[in-house]
């Protein structure tokens, strides 16, 4: 069983869903508008499924207007996921890990000084 935080992060791990969130960050949108950019690569039911994942993760809420089903961002869902600094930290920690690994390959290429005991 997945907890809410894991659901939130697995929802965020998909580029289509992140693109949908990006679209919603500029305002509420109805389902067909949200689906439109993706219809070349996936079916409408597939789009709907992505929206369901986002809704289950607490990242968006669906509202029912007179005629349209529309979606909007749920700020609380994002807030619960982690605070923003934590994301920067993870990004930089990973970059530093890559630099650390790369540095080892760079320094390993240098000729030994000769007085090293193996």
């Amino acid at each position, binding site marked *: 069983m997945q907890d809410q*935080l*894991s659901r939130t*992060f*697995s929802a*965020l*791990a998909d*580029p289509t869903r*992140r*693109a949908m*969130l*990006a679209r919603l*960050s*500029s305002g509420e949108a109805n389902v067909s508008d949200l689906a439109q950019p993706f219809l070349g690569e996936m079916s409408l039911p597939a789009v709907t499924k992505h929206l369901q994942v986002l809704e289950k993760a607490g990242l968006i809420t669906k509202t029912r207007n007179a005629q349209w089903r529309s979606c909007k*961002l749920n*700020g609380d869902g*994002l*807030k619960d*996921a*982690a*605070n*923003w*600094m*934590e*994301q*920067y*930290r*993870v*990004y*930089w*920690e*990973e*970059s*530093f890990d*890559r*630099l*650390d*690994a*790369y*540095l080892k390959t*760079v*320094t390993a290429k240098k000729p030994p000084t000769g007085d090293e005991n193996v």
Partner: protein
Amino acid sequence: MSEFNAPNEIRIVRLYDAPVQAVWDAWTDPAQVAQWWGPRGFSITTHSKDLRVGGHWRYTMHGPDGTDWPNNTKYLEVEPLRKLVYDHGGNDTQPPLFRVTVLFDEVDGQTRMDMTMTVADAETAAQTRTFIKHANGDSTWDRLAEYLGKRLRDEDQFVINRSFEAPQEVVFDMWTQPEHLARWLPPTGMEMRFLHADIRTGGRSLYSMGNEQFTLYGRAHYEQIRRADLLVYTQQFCDEHENISRHPMAPLWPETMRTVVTFHAETPTRTRVTVSWSVAGHATAEELAVFLDHRASMMGGWTGSFDKLEAILAA
């Protein structure tokens, strides 16, 4: 091997852009400590603080998951603006977990904090180091830098430090030579390519980053480069013709971000890198809010970070 610390020690050195009085106050005033003490996501409640030899600081740390961690510190030496020595983690039923010595030293308006945690032996030190890494304990000292920047200069910034086992000149090259940068900077699965690069003070570069699905372009302006200790650049997303654009995944991400990287030799073969990230120029209130807001990070396009964070959370 470097002699930065003894085998049974964990040593942390940081340079803060603040006079020693401000750093000392941040450490010792419970109201200020509450603003930054603990890993990111933690908060604390001080129950009592008696800052004198033999006195105790009793506090509870509240973890992001709601767990409370009681803490007890006993001061052994208190020299205002210069030195603190304390035992941490002891109580009636258990001996202290470790002893900490912190030295403060102001040079040219900046304060060097040199902190050493001493434990029983090398094995305990290795375990403690693993625990600190797992708990993101080092982020405490980054939070102190952010707190001081906000308090003294009203700066909103993100700060992170890491020490690498390599000479300062080598680490500096990693950040300033395009062929090196492209090998480690892009997130896993992404390829970085420089279309042009003139990495010197006043110079500019244009690069692409992407994979089979998409390509992003970015441009950097190098405001200041001082070998081998300082690198200041601003960055913008753009198209392949260098017209400034917004990140497709984060339309409200501030247009220009400034990165300041400083390099300090901790030993001849060990280098500390400090990265500070802030919004540059005129960000709208909304953009600034996005930078400071959780949402920005969620959509910042740091794809690899999310995927890895997910893997960590799933583990």
